[in-house]
């Protein structure tokens, strides 16, 4: 009866060997296809070697507790000829025929022979099992896998002005799933058939800033904020300051009490704020700009109204200077103006935190004093932070302080 070898399969992308934990069958047992027959342990998990077809266990060479590399012969199955035809598995004979091609004998007329190296009158034989002098390419750990970009790929990406983020849409067919130059070019050809337009420089600037910011581990936490007091205070002001200004002031005051939350990590150094200059996100055509309001903690709200209005107006007219947008230590974004109630804003790449305000919604809020649900305007404030510098606890303390300060708008 033909024999089918049981080989150690490739159990994972970087797995080179596994240790036998338990033999689940014995010699003579009848096994089905896809049956677990040998339990093995890799450095990642415990899994099983399964059979490729129905058969009877003829021999088990694997020993419990011993490590075998991928492709090692662990045992042999007796399999009927019909089953081999049905499943198409390799038999021991066919595998050996592949490994040792038939030898030449005598003075062969075969054009494949190294005839020009043969000595006269010598029955030259092809040497079996030739060991090449070049070993398997030593691939460092970081190089294996989908994220490796070869020098040629890097050069092609530079030519096309692409970054790694741009090729995330391309399916890689290279080793380990990496994207090859051919994959990239195929993808770009495919995109030719789609309608497209040129990205504006504003769009590209925002894209670059967000990509750079996103390379950090960001987390978002949020709180419900009662806006009624601020709304009430605001309605009695002339000129009327925007709600964003109230939040800006509360944020600056909270930050001046907790400056560590706005620390910026560079390598092993944390840079502290030297002036509480806070940016405000302004949506413009095809992008976002963030002009910075200076020393927000030092000026009461009334003093900020004109400066803020001027910055927003110039932002919308695209007349902000580079100096207007430089030096901020945190940003406020009021996405509630778009009707959004919740969001996960992304901090600027040179800042650690961003505070977002959602739209106010009338909700029934439980009042402990009165013992009933009372209508109130509730909005969500969220803080997205670089989790390398700030943890949930710190973010929580800051947000609670902002919420508390917002309940006392006359002090802002």
């Amino acid at each position: 009866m033909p024999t089918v070898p049981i080989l150690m399969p490739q159990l994972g992308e970087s797995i080179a060997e596994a240790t036998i934990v338990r033999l689940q069958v014995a010699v003579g047992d009848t096994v089905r296809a896809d049956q677990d027959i040998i339990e093995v342990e890799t450095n990642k998990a415990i899994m099983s070697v399964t059979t490729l077809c129905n058969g009877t266990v003829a021999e088990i060479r694997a020993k419990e507790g011993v490590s075998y590399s991928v492709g090692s012969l662990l045992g042999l199955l007796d399999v009927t000829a019909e089953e081999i035809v049905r499943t198409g598995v390799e038999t021991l004979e066919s595998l050996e025929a592949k490994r040792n091609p038939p030898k030449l004998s005598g003075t062969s007329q075969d054009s494949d022979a190294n005839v020009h190296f043969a000595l006269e009158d010598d029955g030259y034989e092809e040497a079996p099992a030739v060991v090449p002098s070049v070993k398997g390419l030593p691939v460092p750990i970081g190089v294996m896998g989908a994220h490796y970009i070869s020098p040629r790929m890097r050069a092609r990406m530079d030519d096309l002005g692409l970054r790694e983020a741009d090729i995330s849409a391309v399916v890689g067919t290279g080793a380990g799933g990496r994207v090859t130059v051919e994959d990239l070019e195929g993808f770009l050809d495919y995109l030719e058939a789609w309608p497209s337009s040129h990205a504006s420089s504003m769009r590209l600037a925002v894209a670059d800033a967000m990509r750079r910011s996103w390379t950090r581990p960001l987390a978002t936490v949020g709180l419900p904020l009662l806006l009624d007091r601020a709304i009430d205070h605001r309605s009695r002001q002339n000129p009327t300051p925007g709600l964003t200004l109230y939040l800006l002031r509360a944020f600056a005051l909270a930050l001046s009490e907790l400056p560590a939350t706005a620390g910026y990590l560079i390598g092993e150094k944390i840079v502290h704020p030297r002036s509480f200059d806070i940016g405000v996100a302004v949506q413009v055509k095809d992008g976002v700009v963030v002009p910075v309001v200076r020393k927000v903690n030092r000026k009461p709200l009334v003093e900020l109204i004109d400066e803020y209005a001027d910055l927003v107006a110039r932002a919308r007219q695209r007349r902000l200077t580079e100096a207007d947008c430089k030096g901020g230590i945190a940003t406020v974004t009021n996405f509630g103006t778009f009707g959004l109630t919740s969001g996960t804003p992304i901090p600027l790449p040179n800042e650690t935190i961003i505070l977002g305000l959602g739209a106010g919604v009338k909700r029934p809020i439980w009042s402990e004093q009165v013992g009933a649900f009372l209508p109130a305007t509730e909005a969500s404030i969220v803080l997205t932070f670089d989790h390398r510098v700030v943890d949930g606890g710190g973010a929580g303390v800051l947000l609670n302080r902002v919420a508390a300060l917002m309940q006392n708008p006359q002090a802002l």
Partner: protein
Amino acid sequence: MLIVLTPATVADAYHMLIDGVALNDPVVYCEHKFLYRWLKAKSINNEHLPIGQARIARPGKHATVVAYSAMVHEAVRAADRLQSDGWEIEVVDLRSVKPLDLDTILASVARTGRLLALGEAFPWGGVTAEVVSLVSEHGFHLLDAPPQRLNARDTPIPYHPKLWASHRPTPESICEALRHLLAF
């Protein structure tokens, strides 16, 4: 300048000898003893490449093998074997080892992105080392995989034919080296 010629074909053997004699520089002309036995041609074309230019012995697109002298034929045999697996291997016949035709080599690596430098000599500091270091220096941006070399083993050449066959590169070992290169 010293010129070192390593013809791999009958036409090259003829033309390069005549061109070499005509040169004013000293020429080392390497005739491969064992090519005498096997390499035959009914006629020789008068069109021939100048000294210092390499020849594409076999076009391909997946990997480049740069070889000289008898190894060109071994490389072509290995390429034919890999053809059945769907790999198209380009073989460059250096023709003259000095001067080395870097332009042809770089153009070939630009097409394929992978290089195997094949030589029958010892690995240390040989022709293959020169090819690999020049390609790394001038064609780094063309490479998809580290450039590889295949040479004879770093031991004295054995006399017995079987030992010798395991000492020098053969189509099997060339195929295996190429498979490693293609898998990177």
